[in-house]
Every structure is written in structure tokens, then in C-alpha cells.
């Protein structure tokens, strides 16, 4: 467990699963879940490099900023998704390609 590569491989798998969710899911909320997985894998990388680079605290601060951005992004994205649902009665992202109804 005390090896940088272990954490990097976990992060690679997490990123790939998140990307798979983003490109294959139809539901907008499910796409958002994929984005959250990707952000988590990025955070894991930041903290792994911080730990194995001699407890470099800059990595922790950047992970904190990523979490803040994720919270802001989730709030705005869900507001948009609820608006889409009110206009189209669906949130399947492949069906809401009309710019004007």
C-alpha cells in the first residue's frame, strides 16, 4: 500500500469509470455522477503526490479548491437540469438537443 503507483492506478480506474459514465449515460443526473467520479480521481492524484513528495501541503490546498469547485458545479448543474425538465419533461441529454421549442 505504501507505493505511489498503487494510488495512481486506483485513480486511473476511477477516472476511466467516470468517463465511461459521462459518455454512455443518457440521464443528465447520471452524467453529473460521472463528473463527480472524475473530480474524485483528480483529488486522489493531488493527495498521493502530496504524500509521496514529502507532505507537500500545496497538494492539500489544491484538493480543497477542487472540492469547492465541485460543490459549485453540482449546484448550478442541478438547477440547469431542473430547468430542462420543466421545459422538455425529460432529462435524457440526447433528446434535449433543440435550441428552441
Amino acid at each position, binding site marked *: 500500500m505504501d507505493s505511489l503507483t498503487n494510488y495512481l492506478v486506483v485513480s*486511473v*480506474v476511477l477516472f476511466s469509470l467516470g468517463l465511461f459514465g459521462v459518455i454512455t449515460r443518457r440521464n443528465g443526473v447520471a452524467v453529473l455522477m460521472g463528473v463527480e*467520479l472524475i473530480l474524485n480521481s483528480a483529488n486522489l492524484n493531488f493527495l498521493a503526490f502530496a504524500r509521496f513528495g514529502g507532505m507537500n501541503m500545496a497538494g492539500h490546498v489544491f484538493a480543497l479548491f477542487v472540492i469547492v469547485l465541485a460543490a459549485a458545479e453540482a449546484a448550478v448543474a442541478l438547477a440547469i437540469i431542473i430547468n430542462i425538465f420543466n421545459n422538455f419533461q425529460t432529462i435524457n441529454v440526447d433528446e434535449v438537443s433543440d435550441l428552441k421549442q
Partner: protein
Amino acid sequence: MADFTFWIVVGLTLGSAFMVVQSKNLLYSAYALLFSFMGVTGLYVFLWADFIAVVQVVVYVGGILILIIFGIMLTNKITSVNISHTSVQKGIGTLAVLGIATLLAYMVFSTPWIELANVEQEETTASIGRLLMMDYLLPFEAASLLLLGALIGATTLSRKED
């Protein structure tokens, strides 16, 4: 023993993440996301990032996940329609993701990473606070402005027009 726990946590994280992108039921996906977040929190603890681990639990599990479940509840007619969702283009998606994963894994294994030996574990909260108030003061203030903007933007977007 710590080794064993580490692999249990890794299995929990990746298994739940797989459930998130595979499950047919949107609510099952959301609950699997909870376990994935908790697994990532465990990995943060293994990386000696105690403060970030607590922030992860508070913000992701207590905030973002609740928001996502609210989003599911508000955009589905619970009583009439089953909360199912499907995937499209699974074959080509799997191919593309496998390609990217192979590329990344090759990069991870072929790069000679420098790992410092004898790193001492230390308390992180005080150093994070010092960095936020000194070196990263401007990004910190920008993040607070961004949160205010996101708050106002989300309220404006989601309320009914008069």
C-alpha cells in the same frame, strides 16, 4: 493488516464506482456513489490527509450527494414511472475508455516517479490554514466569490418566473 484494509477500501471504491455507471436504477447509482465517496475518503486517510477526508465527508456526502438525490426526486414521477435509466453507445464507449485507460496506465508504469523515503506524518490542518491565509489568499477569496456567484445563479435559474 493495514495492507488488507487498504485493498478492501480500494475494492469498495472501485466496485461502487462500477455500480454507479452500470446500474439500471438511478437511485441505486446514487447510493453506490455514496459508498464510492466513502471509499475515496478512506484512501485520503491512508494518504495522511485527515482534514481533506473530513471535508470530503461533509461536502460530498452531506452536500453534493443530497443535491443529486434531490435532483433525481424532482425530475422523476416517483409514483408512476420507474426510476430507470439506460446507457447508449456502450460498445464504442467501452473501446474509447479502455484505450484511454491503457494509455494512462502505461504512463503511470513507465514514468520513473520520485518517491521520497522517510516522510514524516504531520498534522495537516494548521499548515493548510497557514497556506490559505498566506500563499493562496487570492485563490481563496476568488473561491468565496465563486461560491456566492454559484449560490445566486442556482437560485435564479431554478425559481419560477413571475
